[in-house]
């Protein structure tokens, strides 16, 4: 069944996000703390660091993976809420479509950024 399949991926994507976003949040938001106890590498959003990361293929791939899973998870969650609002069948269909298109659009844009920056700042 369609809904079972979507929910299946909603849960699996949450597991993937948990790992990747856990690392992401750890480096981005505990950077200052890690720096103080001597394992940090300085300001993570400093342009030198941002572009250093963008150059590495591992980062590009994980960024795209996190982008895709995050968007699917979030968009399904939002759809879930809309489906609980007693809307008409046709409106539900439209909202599902709009969210899917928005998700794919954002995914394409984000992937484009990751790939372009990887290539231009590459060796």
């Amino acid at each position, binding site marked *: 069944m369609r809904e079972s399949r979507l929910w299946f991926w909603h849960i699996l994507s949450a597991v993937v996000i*948990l790992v990747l976003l856990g690392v992401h949040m750890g480096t981005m*938001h505990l*950077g*200052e703390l890690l720096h103080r106890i001597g394992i940090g590498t300085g300001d993570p959003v400093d342009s030198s660091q941002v572009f250093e990361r*963008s150059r590495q293929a591992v980062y590009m791939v994980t960024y795209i993976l996190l982008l895709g899973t995050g968007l699917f998870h*979030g968009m399904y969650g939002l759809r879930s809420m809309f489906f609980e609002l007693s809307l008409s069948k046709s409106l539900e269909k439209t909202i599902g479509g709009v969210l899917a298109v928005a998700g794919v659009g954002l995914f394409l*844009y984000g992937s484009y*950024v990751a790939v372009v920056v990887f290539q231009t700042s590459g060796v």
Partner: protein
Amino acid sequence: MQQRLKNRLGLWGWLGGGRYGLDRYAYSLHRLTGLGILAYFIMHIFVTGQRVGGPENWDSTMAAFGSPLFKVGEFLVVLAFAFHAINGIRLILVELGWLIGKPGVPSFPYSYSTLRHKPVFIIFMVFAAALMIIGGVDFYFVMK
């Protein structure tokens, strides 16, 4: 046909935990934080997209978002994330049937899923609180 009076609670049902249990409050918070993170995430995709314009463009973008107001906003996202992530692990386990016990023959006083689950629930919330505190310490250093 006599007139029926509509009595659905509406959105208040999503947000008002009332006299129900802790799980009901966690449910409301999970919704709110999920929506908040999603809104931030979409913004985040566009903001970090500024990398395409090269290091100068990136630095000016970061400067634009460097005000304390945005730092506080970001910190709120960290808190929301801490709750959503830890509570999310709990929900994954629970919705797949773990940590809530097995069905049996009901006998008074009744034992039921959320009641059996309560100790686990509290442990998870302690973890979430710990994560928020660690995030708070980092935020303190950043603001100083």
